[in-house]
């Protein structure tokens, strides 16, 4: 029952135009499904990591 992320990730597999963002989102979804408890501090840090990566991929830095 903990593997419902499967469905979400399945939905993410297609129809998402931005590949980098799709990857970032699927990673976030995966983490949010895997972790039982994510503190707001940790959430911020993880989100920031993926968002920063997106900026880097875009050539923002």
């Amino acid at each position, binding site marked *: *029952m*903990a*593997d*419902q*992320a*499967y*469905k*979400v990730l399945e*939905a*993410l597999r297609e*129809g*998402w135009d*931005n590949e980098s*963002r*799709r990857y*970032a*989102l699927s990673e*976030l*979804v995966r983490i*949010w*499904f895997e972790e*039982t408890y*994510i503190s*707001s501090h940790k*959430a*911020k840090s993880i*989100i*920031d990591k*993926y*968002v*920063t990566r*997106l*900026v880097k991929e*875009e050539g*923002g*830095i």
Partner: protein
Amino acid sequence: MAKRYTRIDSVTFEGYRVYKDETFELEKTREEDLHIIVGKMGTGKTTFLNGISYLLYNRELTKSEVDGKPIHYTGIFEEGISRVPMSIRMTVSRGLNQWILERKVWLKKVGDSVAYTDPKVSVKTPDEMEEDFTQWLDNFIPQKVSHFFFFDGEALEKYFTQDKREDVQTTIKDLLRYDRLKKLYEDLTAYINEQTGRISIKDNKLAQLYRQLEDYDREVHEHIERKSEIRVELSSLNKKLKEYKEIANSTYDLSLKMKEKELKEEELNQKMKMWKEKLSQWNIAGVKLYILALAKPYMKDMQKKIEERESADAVIPGLSDFIRYAIDKGRCPICQRDLSAEEINNLKVRLKDIATADATQILYGIFQRSYGRATRLLEDRDSILLLGKEVAELEEDIENLKRQKAKLAKDIKRHLPEEVNKVMKEIPRINQQIEKLIEEREQIDKRINELKTRIQRIKNAINKNESRVRDIDMVRKKLTHALALREDLEKLMNRIMSDSTRELSQRATYWFRKMMWKENAFKEVKITDDFEVQVLDDKGANVIGSLSGGENQILALAYTLALHDVMHLESPVIIDRPTANISGDSTEFVMNVLADISKERQIILLLNDKDWEQVRKYVENRASTIWVLEHDDATSSTVAKKVA
């Protein structure tokens, strides 16, 4: 290869309701993991379901507890024993992993009533390794979705009522772990808010710094302008002060000069007085000198005359006449001074005395003394002459002084007293103003210095902040991506829900048509986006309202199985009387479907004897185990017999 799923290996009820001590070993002996428990009413068929619910969730499905406590087996206290356990134990496995779950309550007989200890629940591996029960259960069948696994076939219709629709929606969201997505959505929103805040804080900070700098610059400018005003004011005041001081000084000088003149005049007058007195004395001395001059020729003879006792008159001829003249005229014959009555009387007495020899003696004495004085006076003769000359000069000086004084008085009069008064009053006021202005100027200088320090500090801060502009750009970029991610997530969440309802519709249609004998009568089961269940006929009309009780039960079962499919649920399913209202060919279809499903998951069916009679032929050869519950009159308990 058979699909791996979680299954119940065995269930043991000890001292629970009708079960004294019964164990159901549910081993899989066929391809189908199907288990059937048959029992007449009151033999403990539903108790099986309640017991598992009590074990897992500490509550019985049919809520028949007394005071919140499960009913124990009536014959639990054997003679002589007052403390016994009531427990339900279940062995669950997945592949090679196995867990033993137990809920145990100790019962104590107190008089006619029974005292319960708090239930103790545990989940252990066979090697006694304990796990967290709630967490374990969360991965098995959480309570919030338990009604999709343990249910009463007759009560399945409740899923279609309006008030239950939201429950289903919530449950589906729960099953999809929608809460996780929602949490991610919320966390993303919090992140976005924070980043937005950072940008606005930075922007605001910079703007605030610039505003402050502008304010300080303006203030400095105002102060400098004021300083220049002060300079002009000070210069004008100083000029005025100078003028006033000049006026005051000139008046003062004149007064001073006048004072000097007055003092000088006084001094001269004093001197004059003194000199006149001296001159007067000298005049008197001059008279005496005259007398002496008169007496001198007689001085030689006088000694002789005295010896001869001659009268003074004889010594100084004319003396008596001289005195007589003074008495008669009442005036000094030499200085022409008027004589007082007393002096005249004295002279009268003297006149008598002159006639005597004694008087000559006295006169001689006088002459002698006077002679000495007169000699000294004669020696001062030049001084007297000089003094006279000086007095004349002094008189001239005094005259000059008086003239000067008159001129000065005229000058002083030229300056009006009002103007002088005004000037004298104005001077301290102007001084005060000047002091005030100087103090203000000092304060301004102090403030300007302070502002300059602040301006420098702000400029530094601005430089620092401006160097962070790149940082802000980064935050802005992050924000853009975070917003896009959140939008994607929202799209995803909507899509999942809409996919779920679409898939749910497809699966429900599949199961419904598979279990319905009137296979062609209904085209489609449709679950709308707000989870309304519709049954559409071939014309697309919703005919759910005209379904029979059996059809409704099949629909509910189809819906439940569809939910399992969509959610990829694989936990054991226990159904109490799945065919209660179903008759005819549908019974076969339903049982076949359940038997087919049991190839991929464990299905436990609880049937009464009539149900069993109806379905036996379809599933007897497909069930792994079949149990019959029988009431044992001797012990008033149920005995479970495995018949297959």
